[in-house]
């Protein structure tokens, strides 16, 4: 995973509340076999509207997405996080997130920034004309106009994102416990290995 320290750039000013994972990536995209390429299916229904922010050249390739309350509710599909990463989004800013989405986002290297609605409103306004700066180390979101909003994050998630460490990588970082466990079980209960390998 790419480490995430600071992210600066334009932001998609979506603003919508209750964006469910079906809106992020519709069910018909679930039969894929890759995490890559889902970006083209992202926000498909919203993109039917010719004035949507995602197809507006002003915001093309933005690394930040700004949304309303309860972002990522609905089905637990991990494809929603894969689709966002694939379209280049590393940070989602909203007043609140669904737990499952927040966990899936984190597992895939996306930072979810929860700030109060007033902050979201201000950032939506700035996003229309200027870039936004997210600093994970300082836990802050700033704008070229001296706005500064701070946010909370679980220290474990913070260090993983800063270091670009995924959960698998972390567990693999120290496998001595697993090795000891396996040795003990191989000695105590050798029959645990299936009879036909």
């Amino acid at each position, binding site marked *: 995973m790419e480490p995430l320290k600071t992210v600066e750039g334009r932001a998609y000013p979506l603003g919508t509340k209750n964006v469910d994972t079906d809106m992020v990536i519709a069910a018909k995209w679930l039969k894929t*076999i890759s995490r890559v390429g889902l970006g083209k299916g992202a926000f498909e229904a919203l993109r039917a509207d010719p004035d949507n922010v995602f197809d507006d050249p002003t915001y093309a390739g933005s690394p930040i997405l700004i949304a309303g309350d309860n972002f990522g509710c609905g089905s637990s599909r991990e494809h929603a996080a894969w689709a966002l990463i694939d379209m280049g989004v590393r940070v989602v800013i909203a007043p609140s997130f669904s737990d499952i989405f927040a966990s899936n986002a984190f597992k895939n290297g996306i930072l979810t920034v929860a700030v109060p609605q007033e902050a979201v409103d201000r950032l939506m306004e700035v996003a229309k004309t200027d870039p936004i700066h997210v600093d994970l180390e300082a836990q802050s979101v700033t704008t070229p106009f001296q706005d500064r909003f701070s946010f909370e994050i679980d220290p474990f998630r913070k260090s993983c994102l800063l270091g670009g460490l995924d959960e698998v990588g972390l*567990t693999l970082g120290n496998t001595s416990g697993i090795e000891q*466990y396996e040795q003990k079980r191989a000695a105590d209960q050798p*029959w645990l290995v299936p*009879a036909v390998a």
Partner: protein
Amino acid sequence: MTQPTTLYQKIWDAHVVERRDDGTCLIYIDRHLIHEVTSPQAFEGLRIAGRKVRRPDLTLAVPDHNLPTTARRDAAGNRIPIADPEGAGQLAALERNAPEFGIRYFGDADPEQGIVHVVGPEQGFTLPGTTLVCGDSHTAAHGALGALAFGIGTSEVEHVLATQTLLLKQSKTMEVRVDGELGPGVTAKDLILEVIRRIGTAGGTGHVIEYRGSAFRDLSIEGRLTVSNMSIEGGARAGLFAPDEKTFAYLKGRPMAPQGAAWDAAVAYWKTLVTDEGAVFDTSVVFDASEVVPNVTWGTSPEDVVPITGVVPAPESFADPSKQAAAKAALDYMGLTVGQRMEDVPVEHIFIGSCTNSRIEDLRAAAAVLKGRKIAGTIRQALVVPGSGLVKRQAEAEGLDRIFTESGFEWREPGCSMCLGMNPDRVPAGERCASTSNRNFMGRQGPGARTHLVSPAMAAAAAITGHLTDVRELVGETA
């Protein structure tokens, strides 16, 4: 003296690799089942990071969800192409990934192929006291053998592949205790539907359920698999049955089960896997087996259960306003009217199959009802889909396939089939199916499809009469 502990606690404690300060534990996983839908991106993740599968010997891959249940090879032995390109893509990915990562794989035309949750127990891959995971919520089924088994998401599949562990927090425990004897014509399916009716689909949330009492003990392993399978419909991540002599007899001689001296050592350990006298459960649900009758679902949630002798309930009969609204929507979707007798509800489709009810005993129970009878002329499609190639062979050896086909059923190849609208077997919109599967959600068997969950015997009875039917009337109380 040590504290009396639950079976769940014993299995959990035996699998803790590391304990963190916040209570999260790194838990060792003994068995990992893989199918084609939730694994492609996990393998992709490994490939991108240059990682390998830590214990391919503890992993088993089988395709099931997307496979058509019609013939898979032509007369010359060539694969018959699958119409749906995406489903075919997922199947091809598994067929590629398994050998690439050194994982044992039962292919679409192997006799061992079947629904993952049928194959695991049948092969002796599932063992008492093990932790078992699969990227599928009905993994709970394996708890029937005393394995701590639960479904996981794709990221977790990748974590298990790479590390053979998962980071987990301990669940709460729930005991469901049913003593007494089930009446004639009342099956394991009716019993678990009764449990879900009582606790609701969220009743077991955050819990692991242990099924206790003589009614559960008296069930065969097949029956226990049916019960444990639907633990997730009651909100519980896993279900458990303490292993006993029936469990050992079922497993003995299975291809992947321990043999010889190893078998004896294993059985000695398995015998310790019981909840101690005096152990405390966080939640307890108790009722008597005599209260269970043949059940059927009327709505679009597995908790929407009524006796087959009952009527469609009025939404106002539910206390909770959100349940009232859900019931109204369900009745609309299902095309049913309040007060309608369940036995008067006509069905056009019959599905006998799925990881809930596709084992040999299920097929025997359905065949016993169908023998010498014909399905009603109003039935548009009646499918029997054995849970695995081995179940299919066994049924054919017993002549069950003939009973099914002579009565008008189609005898198919093993797979998930009409349990979910992911492969060609679907119920058309607005049509009704008596189904032995586990979910009656809107659109589950195809967009607009209407599902009534029943036992295999009740599905067979509905096939004969063309409407939902009390199997006890059809075969007499003594059946």
